[in-house]
């Protein structure tokens, strides 16, 4: 079962991460605190404003397309949230 439980991705996402870091069912959720913060900010903003995840997702799709391939995923997430916040209501 280990291949499935250890989140064995093609890019070896758990390489180099020290043992003892909390994982959920084998998966490290956030690689760095700012990633969790960025996720939490978006979730809180979407919930508080009622803008809806679909609106956020549209910005996320655009941000991923606009940023260079290989840009860390949560950087695109931050970019998307900045655009959503800046967009006219």
């Amino acid at each position, binding site marked *: *079962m280990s*291949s*499935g*439980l250890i*989140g*064995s*991705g*093609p*890019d070896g*996402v758990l390489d180099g991460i020290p043992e003892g870091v*909390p994982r*959920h*069912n*084998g*998966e490290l*959720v*956030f*690689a760095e*605190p*700012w990633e*969790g*913060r*960025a*996720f*939490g*900010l978006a*979730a*809180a*903003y*979407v*919930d*508080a*404003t009622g803008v809806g*995840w*679909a609106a956020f*997702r549209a910005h*996320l*799709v655009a941000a*991923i397309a606009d940023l260079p*391939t*290989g840009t*860390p*995923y*949560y*950087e695109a997430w*931050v970019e998307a*949230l*900045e655009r959503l*916040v800046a967009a006219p209501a």
Partner: protein
Amino acid sequence: MTDAGHHASEPSPIERRVAALESLLVERGLITSDVVDAVVETYERDVGPLNGARVVARAWTDPAYRARLLADGTRAIGELGFGGAEGEHLVALENTPTVHNLVVCTLCSCYPWPVLGLPPVWYKSFAYRARAVREPRAVMAEFGTVVPDDVDVRVWDSSAEVRYMVLPLRPPGTDDLGEDALVPLVTRDHMIGVVR
């Protein structure tokens, strides 16, 4: 988590951007840092693939539940207390001896959070998003999964409103196991479909 920015060294540019964004939203009265803390903690601790594993184990042991899950995924996971953001239109895809399902989001990272938690890094990668559709068998092979040629591989793109999870085949030799004993046999990768 509010002291996450306290580093011995200078914060990185991305850390500064996130902190600035948080300050802006707090100043506007839209969010509080306590709410952000709670969201992060929930996803780090409480929401994850174990939820989905419970759903699968229930479906393996309760034919009536299995039928309800395949008919209306959102309602069926709700029976087990799971639901919320990104779970509003959940469809469970049934693997059979002749069909294997694989889930991807080609445009971004759509994923059924209530049952699988947040997606792994590789699911969000450009390589996976591009290749899962083009060469699914090659992608699965990198996870050690070889699907026989006479099994039909179906790839599902989550980029519409619908979120998918795979209902894997029950492993052979587990007829004597109950639901609780089956839960640990179900992994996130089974429910995405990169493992059969």
